[in-house]
């Protein structure tokens, strides 16, 4: 451990001296250099993008407004061209690596604030086909070794506390169900997929300090159509896919600590300094995720890079905690301000969603930013104010960056999400029940297909013959149904169906179930709390308002580039329903004790008295004489006469 820390220190020293050297060089060539701080990330191979060239970086850039008074500042802070050559040479020995960080903040209409951190490490290397990778720089070694050892092609893991309220908050950038979710695509060279999956979950439980080792065959399914690989690759045989959720998983600091350690800068620099657990967990919704997948290494998609994407989504309920004032700042949300970008990051930006605030009528941003960018997110074109943390001018003279929003009015309507879903348990008693899943299509005139995935534990025995799908009072026949019945204590129910949702409608899926009796030792230590059933997953192609960008290899802001798009007219989203909490018939656990007590009593009283009766001898006892007779006898004895 000491050795590793030492080597990283020496690396930093070397790089710092290198950057110093560049600074000296640069100052010779360009006299107008503003601040040497921006050259700290000479390590990063992608050169600093000056704001004038932002059009190249932003994919769906339509308007780039640079206010006149800020233009000279931006021109000044352009880095010298010498940076690229010196770093590119040093990088050549190692596969190309790139790290980007982003913070997206979206003020929600409910008064809450949605903050989403996105970190992406791209590495041009190959974990496939048993290739041994031994030298790691930005990519975390612990995950790299997991990928190599278990021949993982894609790994998606998320830990979430709280439920994402789609109707109040809109769609998240990356959805996640409450609890823990893990789905993995293995490479086609894996022969024993189930064994590898079991070992992988054990290893991941160690890495993330989570109870992922509770994933076994009773909560693992192989969806036939719901989860397709998100990375590149041509094999989609679902035999190599495993999906599991743990809806009761706790998420707390011990999960955040290892998650932060995977970042190249840890929580020491860059956006990650904002991640203080006291603030992040004092929120309405908290979700952290790690996604690993192979992506295109070049625009022609001839080579593969490995992408590690770490996201952390938080919804702060500042409206109630701030005594009803709708004001917030980075300091109020995270109890920290920013002082620098991560020196290893090639880009470090903060995006504020200002789509609903085009003329500044709803809120004011301080400090103001000259940069605006547009991106197509979830079928909608959004406008963002951009703060580039790699520019020293962002931090101003105080060398600290504390973004503030002051609200002027509380009006404004949210665009209603086109798709959302909810679920509940109906019925009474402890024998049977009914699961209702409601899927809402809010589009006024377009219908679209959704794929519903339900994974129900074996102790709820589904009556599949009672399955009904109705929309607008009519039967809606699914065009595809895949059902795998459960086996007691071995595997869960898996139900997948493809349903076409008519425009402006509610589609209801109901199925009845019976509650099974568990064995005495199978109950949890707190069985009266109930048992959880994981969220259903609704995957859908929702019609888009604006044309989607189908070029998946182009550089985009991280938050808008996760699900690959195939066609311009629709976009892919995934919606999770609430997990269910179901009461099972719970026995009286003190019953064995009661039985023992009762049996002992019966034995003691019943058998004891019988035994007593059988073994006792009976003798006829003469009744004792009365008092008068006894006195008379005493007198007779004294007289010497025989007694009566």
């Amino acid at each position: 451990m000491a050795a590793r820390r030492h080597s990283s220190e020496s690396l930093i020293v070397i790089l710092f001296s290198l950057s110093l050297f560049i600074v000296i060089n640069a100052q010779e060539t360009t006299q107008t250099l503003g601040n040497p701080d921006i050259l700290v990330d000479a390590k990063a191979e992608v050169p600093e993008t000056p704001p004038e060239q932002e059009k190249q970086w932003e994919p769906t850039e339509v308007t780039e407004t640079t206010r006149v008074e800020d233009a000279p500042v931006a021109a000044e802070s352009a880095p010298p061209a010498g940076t690229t050559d010196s770093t590119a040479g040093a990088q050549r020995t190692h596969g190309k690596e790139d790290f980007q960080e982003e913070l997206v903040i979206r003020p929600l209409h409910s008064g809450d604030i949605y903050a989403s951190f996105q970190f992406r490490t791209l590495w041009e290397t190959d974990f496939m086909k048993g290739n041994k990778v031994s030298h790691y720089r930005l990519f975390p070694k612990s995950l790299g070794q997991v990928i190599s050892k278990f021949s993982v092609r894609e790994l998606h893991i998320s830990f979430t506390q709280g439920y994402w309220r789609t109707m109040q908050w809109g769609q998240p950038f990356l959805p996640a169900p409450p609890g823990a979710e893990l789905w993995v695509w293995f490479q086609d060279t894996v022969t024993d997929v189930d064994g590898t999956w079991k070992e992988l979950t054990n290893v991941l439980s160690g890495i993330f300090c989570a109870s992922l080792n509770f994933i076994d065959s009773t909560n693992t399914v192989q969806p036939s159509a719901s989860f397709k690989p998100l990375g590149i690759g041509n094999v989609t045989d679902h035999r190599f896919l495993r999906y599991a959720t743990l809806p009761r998983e706790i998420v707390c600091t011990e999960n955040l600590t290892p998650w932060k350690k995977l970042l190249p800068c840890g929580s020491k620099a860059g956006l990650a300094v904002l991640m203080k657990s006291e603030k992040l967990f004092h929120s309405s919704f908290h979700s952290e995720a790690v996604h690993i997948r192979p992506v295109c290494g070049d625009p022609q998609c001839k080579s593969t890079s490995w992408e590690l994407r770490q996201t952390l989504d938080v919804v702060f309920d500042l409206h109630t905690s701030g005594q009803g004032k709708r004001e917030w700042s980075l300091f109020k949300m995270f109890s920290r301000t920013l002082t620098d970008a991560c020196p290893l990051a090639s880009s470090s930006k903060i995006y504020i969603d200002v789509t609903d605030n085009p003329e500044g009528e709803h809120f004011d941003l301080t400090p103001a930013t000259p940069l605006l960018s547009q991106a197509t997110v979830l079928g909608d074109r959004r406008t963002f104010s951009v703060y580039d943390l790699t520019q020293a001018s962002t931090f101003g003279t105080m060398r600290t960056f504390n973004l503030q929003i002051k609200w002027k009015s509380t009006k404004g309507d949210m665009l209603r999400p086109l798709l959302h879903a909810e679920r509940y348990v109906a019925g009474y008693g402890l024998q049977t029940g009914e699961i209702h899943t409601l899927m809402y299509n809010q589009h006024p005139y377009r219908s679209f297909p959704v794929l519903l995935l339900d994974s129900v534990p074996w102790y709820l025995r589904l009556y599949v013959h009672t399955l009904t799908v109705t929309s607008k009072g009519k039967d809606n026949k699914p065009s595809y149904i895949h059902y795998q019945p459960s086996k007691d204590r071995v595997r869960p129910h898996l139900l997948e169906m493809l349903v076409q949702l008519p425009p402006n409608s509610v589609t209801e899926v109901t199925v009845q179930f019976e509650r099974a009796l568990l064995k005495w030792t199978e109950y949890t230590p707190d069985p009266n709390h109930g048992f959880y059933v994981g969220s259903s997953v609704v995957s859908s192609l929702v019609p888009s308002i604006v044309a989607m960008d189908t070029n998946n290899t182009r550089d985009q802001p991280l938050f808008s580039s996760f699900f690959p798009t195939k066609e311009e007219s629709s976009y892919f989203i995934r919606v999770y329903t609430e997990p269910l909490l179901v009461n099972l018939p719970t026995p009286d656990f003190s019953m064995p004790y009661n039985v023992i007590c009762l049996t002992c009593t019966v034995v003691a009283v019943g058998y004891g008295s019988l035994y007593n009766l059988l073994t006792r001898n009976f003798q006829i006892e003469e009744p004792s004489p009365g008092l008068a007779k006894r006195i008379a006898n005493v007198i007779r004895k004294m007289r010497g006469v025989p007694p009566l």
Partner: protein
Amino acid sequence: MKLPVLLLIFATHLPPGTAHIGQHVGNFFSSQHTNNWAVLVCTSRFWFNYRHVANTLSVYRSVKRLGIPDSHIVLMLADDMACNHRNPKPATVFSHKNMELNVYGDDVEVDYRGYEVTVENFLRVLTGRLPPSTPRSKRLLSDDRSNILIYLTGHGGNGFLKFQDSEEISNVELADAFEQMWQKRRYNELLFIIDTCQGASMYERFYSPNLMALASSQIGEDSLSHQPDLAIGVHLMDRYTFYLLEFLEDIHPASKTNMNDLFRVCPKSQCVSTPGHRTDLFLRDPGSVLITDFFGSVRKVEITTDAIDLTEPARRRDETAVSEERETEQLSYVDQLPVSEIIHQKPKQKDWHPPDGFILGLWTLILLVFFRAYGVKHLKHIF
């Protein structure tokens, strides 16, 4: 690279004057252990047992502060108090009222949590009999040169300790587990601390060598709680661990405090119960055993005078040939919801089954042959 580190360590231990070197070196090597481990267990579930989690975390905080790394600590917490919905300040666990000391910290690593904290898992960790795929962070990888600190807290009675309100470990089982550890050479010396009601009953059956044990209360006594907090609504600590933490906060890695000082922690006037200790199995004199032998960590230092050449160029493997051939195939992203493909996908191949007509024909043939051979008149012999 190692040299500056070890010089630093020696510099902290050796005063500038060299007169006492011999004596100090003697202290430095008096204990025979080369590594330190800690197993810290909270066995209680439910919010009202907040204090047991705080107990365990305060010991965790102390051993971590004194140098035992997270990789050498197995921390078991039976419930999540920090992010419990009843906690008014999420991601914190306080040990002092008025929220003075947050023992949860910002970089805690819990190895076993929730339902994972069972008697079986605890005994498996101690004896090392875990499934092969168990990660390193969940294992006690100690050897015969390890000093192990074992701390337990929860609800107990005479001769047992409850786990999660649903099962219990008895003092005989615990004693046997330690004997198994000794026979497997899993420890050099072991310090056992338990904070529970009638805690002394848990160590009275121990019979393995090199064990030292402490308990918060004698048989027949209850261990009592301390520090009620109005905002959190529960007691924050147990008395014994509260004063233990107070004692440990004053310890630093070079402290000369010994075990006899630890035995004096929390007298009956403070604890209300009578803390007990047992040293008859321990071979050394408790007065010569430093607190840091168990709560701190030793760093293994090796001195070499040979020069090590680190400038040897790393050999690079020739990877170009392999990557060339792989790049020929064009890769693309997969359609996330291929509707037509899903609808028109071939139904799963069923097992071969003879056509219905064939079975019908076969039966007809059998009946025909039967009647041909025996005729209708023989039917009465059959039925």
